């Protein structure tokens, strides 16, 4: 029985499961099923997040995206000497 099947059978039986209790975190990527992915991730996230700056706030994700966006092209400038076209 794989770790994934063990977790799924616990779900089926309704037995409470402690976080990650059923898994040993392994540096190798195991069977590509979601539950096993999550177990693997506990360890991976610990490694990836080890040197995160304290300023990395979840709520600032859109601000981060905006800062990476191309600069908006300004509207065409009007020649001050030219009269505005009549509307």
């Amino acid at each position, binding site marked *: 029985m794989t770790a994934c099947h063990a977790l799924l059978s616990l*779900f089926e039986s309704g037995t409470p499961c402690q976080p990650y209790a059923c898994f040993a975190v392994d540096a190798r990527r195991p069977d590509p099923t979601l539950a096993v992915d999550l177990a693997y991730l506990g360890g991976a996230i610990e490694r990836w997040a080890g040197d995160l700056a304290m300023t990395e706030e979840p709520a*600032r994700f859109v601000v981060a995206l905006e800062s990476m966006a191309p600069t908006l092209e300004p509207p065409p400038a009007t020649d001050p000497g030219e009269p505005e076209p009549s509307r």
Partner: protein
Amino acid sequence: MRDWTLEAQSAALQTRRVSSLELVEACLARIARLDPGLRAFITVDAEGARATAKERDAELAAGRRRGPFHGLPLAYKDLCAIAGLPTSCGTRTPEYFIAERECTAVVRLRAAGAVTLGKLSMSELALGPFGDNAHHGNVQNPWRSGHCSGGSSSGSGAAVAAGLALAALGTDTGGSIRLPAAACGIVGLKPTYGRVSRAGAMALSWSNDHFGPMTGTVRDTALVLGVIAGHDPEDSTSSRRPVPDYLAAVDGGIAGLRLGMPENYFFEDVADGIAAAVEDAGRRLAAGGAHLVRLRVPDPGPITDVTGLVSRAESAAIHARILKERPHELQPAVRARLEVGLQISAYDYLQALRLRARMARHFVREVFSEVDVLLMPTIPEPAPRLADVTSAPVGAVIASMARFSRLTRPFNGLGLPALSVPCGLSPERLPLGLQIVGRPFDEATVLRVGCAWEQAVGGFPRPALG
């Protein structure tokens, strides 16, 4: 069907070659004829649509045009709150989602004149890439019955492909707009995170949910995006960045643009015919004046994993009530995927959220200093048979879900705009999809490349449904 687009029918309405009521009746007739087999709709509001269409026709006769969607019949994924219509979210409960306010994207389209035909089927709680639904019927692929429509915006994909509505809205947490768009042979856009308000719709994952158009042409997608994009005070994540004129941008041509073809991940474990079709699309676009660039992109594995963990934690919290009180109502794979979220620690969840911006900055810096867009397949295989993905054990179903959506999920975590456009047919005559990914908030360039592709192939084919 060639002119069964928003743009063509809007022009026909304005010149009185057709009325809104005639368009609505045509859609209702197609729904009556085709939907008993397709199962794209959960709720058809025939009387509401007819009444609104008559109003729009009277307004046009009096010289009033509400906006670019005046009199055009649209339909919406059944997780959008719309006054007077139930919102099942694909569950067994007809009124699963009750919101204090209507869905902002729908409100904006209605204010621009759109007529609501009804609510479209979806994977239960938007958790599934295939479009199977035990409560409302499996949505069938309009190109080949018995095959998946893709999901979770399954009804949106099937309805637009079959001409049951001129356009639809979908949502995308891991590919749920792009997968059904690719599987059904239509255009689907997941905009940049924050570009389109998510207010008034059931959430699956606040951090990864995106709203977007599903249409028959790239220009129609630009038209819809122009109306639904923009800041909404009801959605704290919606951006204040100005909305460009997308329709004006799509015809800009692609001369000089750098089109990136990833050498790693996105062409691995992809069916031969799909990889060849996308390679061919790149060559044909390059022949139009763009530069084709082969490059290695940062491994999408970590951002995909982070996105998955965040989605599972948030979806378990959002849908905790049905999970705890009525778990027997949920399809086994949906229940299993939600339950996994209960096991995620707050520490892992928050660290995953904090990692996103850094991963996005890294990806954007490494990729978009070299190219303007990325080209890749949307789906790794043509739409599989429904029987194959519904009859397997739960673990195998979840594994096949992960495989089918592996090319789309990275861009939910990264928040980048990603467009799926049709890219030929498999030997079984099932649609293939080309995915075009751009810089944050650069939907205009993504749409421009999509439009150039559509013009290069002389328009996208529709299934032969009569």
